[in-house]
């Protein structure tokens, strides 16, 4: 006599088998001990109805969430990926919304897909859209909240970004490829090009915007909760370190070997852009508030 636990354990294995249960003699015996069948369906066929539904449902969810990967691989290859993924990363969540959360890591680490890092990056972009879609809300920015603040207060201010905003650093313009694939434009695989993007929620739709490296460095510091003054210094150091020696627009102030006049330091470059960024990021809804309290995040 099988207990409830024993029956559920056997069925959980049977339903997650990719191929029909009848293909596995041992599993078929287990299924026959549990299901009774009827005059139209054998016990194994009864259980197989649920197995088929399991795969249809789960693969459909992954198709929706990773449509650009399905385009990149083709239908059959995507289905093989979905099967391998679901076997390796079964849903542990109460919601199918979370089903694909490990896809980028899976693609990056599991052959043969790991030999094409473009795919893992595509999964990362797709998942950024999922997270941006239903991430936490935040009240809109209130300009009155910064009125009357003195210049001295700004270096210690913390800029609070929209909690659903997703910042990605990419090796390919995968975000453009994703949009093309989802619009049915049949995009070609792009050439490698480092880019920085932000995926964010607009009033009606999700958006993806490419930003330059300076803005990305600054935005990343602000997202960490770094006070504005320190964020500028850290972002400038990062930009300075990343700039090639003799780079015209990011040369250190002491470097006058190119014969020009004094150039702006990376910090000065950033500070010069700051007002424009603040205005743009506020209008895009990325900046939600400014905190002037000294205690930290």
């Amino acid at each position: 006599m099988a207990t409830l636990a024993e029956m559920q354990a056997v069925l959980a294995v049977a339903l997650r088998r990719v191929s029909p249960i009848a293909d596995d003699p041992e599993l078929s015996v287990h299924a026959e001990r549990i299901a009774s069948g009827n005059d139209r369906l054998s016990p194994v066929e009864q259980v197989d109805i649920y197995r088929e539904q399991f795969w249809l449902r789960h693969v459909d969810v992954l198709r929706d969430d990773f449509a650009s990967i399905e385009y990149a691989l083709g239908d059959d290859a995507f289905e093989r990926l979905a099967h391998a993924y679901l076997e390796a990363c079964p849903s542990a969540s109460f919601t199918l919304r979370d089903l694909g959360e490990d896809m980028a890591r899976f693609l990056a680490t599991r052959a043969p897909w790991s030999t094409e890092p473009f795919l893992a990056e595509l999964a990362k972009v797709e998942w950024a859209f999922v997270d941006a879609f239903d991430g936490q809300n935040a009240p809109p920015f209130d300009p009155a909240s910064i009125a009357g603040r003195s210049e001295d207060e700004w270096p210690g201010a913390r800029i609070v970004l929209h909690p659903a905003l997703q910042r990605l650093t990419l090796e390919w313009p995968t975000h453009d490829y994703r949009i093309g694939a989802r619009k049915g434009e049949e995009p070609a695989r792009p050439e490698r090009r480092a880019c920085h993007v932000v995926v964010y929620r607009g009033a009606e739709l999700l958006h993806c915007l490419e930003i330059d490296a300076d803005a990305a460095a600054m935005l990343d510091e602000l997202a960490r909760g770094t006070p504005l003054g320190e964020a500028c210094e850290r972002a400038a150091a990062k930009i300075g370190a990343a700039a090639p020696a003799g780079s015209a627009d990011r040369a250190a102030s002491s470097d006058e070997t190119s014969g020009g006049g004094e150039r702006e330091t990376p910090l000065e470059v950033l500070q010069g852009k700051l007002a424009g960024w603040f205005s743009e990021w506020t209008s895009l809804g990325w900046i939600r508030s400014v905190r002037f309290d000294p205690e930290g995040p």
Partner: protein
Amino acid sequence: MSFRDRHAIPDLGVGVGFRIPHYPRVLESSEPLMDWFEVISENFLVAGGRPLDNLARLADKYRVVPHGVSLAIGSVEPLDAAYLAKLKDLFARLDPPWVSDHLCWARAPGVHIHDLLPLPYTREAIEHVVERVKRVQGTLERPFALENVSSYMTYRESTMSEWDFLAEVAERADCGLLLDCNNVYVSSRNHGFDPVTYIDAVPADRVVQMHLAGHTDKGKYVLDTHSDHVKDEVWDLYRRAVARCGAVSTLVEWDDDIPEWDVLSAEAAKARTMRAELLAAPRRPSLVATAEAG
């Protein structure tokens, strides 16, 4: 006093599920388009964004009743405390007159199967489910109803009918029932029982809501697809259920191949007319007697 009376369960009339293709029509209409709406609880257990904005807009205009699919009341895995806490938060925002999920299992060690898997109709399963329903009701602090599921398999271990199993669970757990007439029909076709016997055996005073939906005949079995009009045989069962249970909130489910709003609305109107005619007519003595005995 009946379950419905004890919990002051209202009759909300006839509603439909709140589904994405209809969001603009439903949310932007200045006139009420429906008596009430049902939402799938799990679709709104998210941190924020459009789902919660849309739900808030809906709840501003209509009575909204959440219906869950992931509780897995019959699983041997422990109840998911974090999930229950999220449900409780959602229910606090909507303040529904009752909440519901399915009499099924769905979780196994390390995996959520995301299906409504039937239980074996055994004493062990009754003990297990009754204890868990009591804990769920204690946690959620809301009238809770279990829905009968469509099923495609039968268990060798079952020792009773599905309707006897359902009735005993409901009585001993002291919970409500969401009677899905289409599920009764689908299972009756798949397992060869008389659906009228099922309807007549349901504890009528515990039924807080009914479901109607379409299904698909796959030849060797019938699949609960929610992708079509309600079939005539299911309307017949609905008439019988209304005659037994009285004025109970009804919901038309249509989740795949979702039609234009007007088609769905007409299906709800059909249920509304049918219900009104039945409720206006004198109740059949034999059915009333069965209901009171139940």
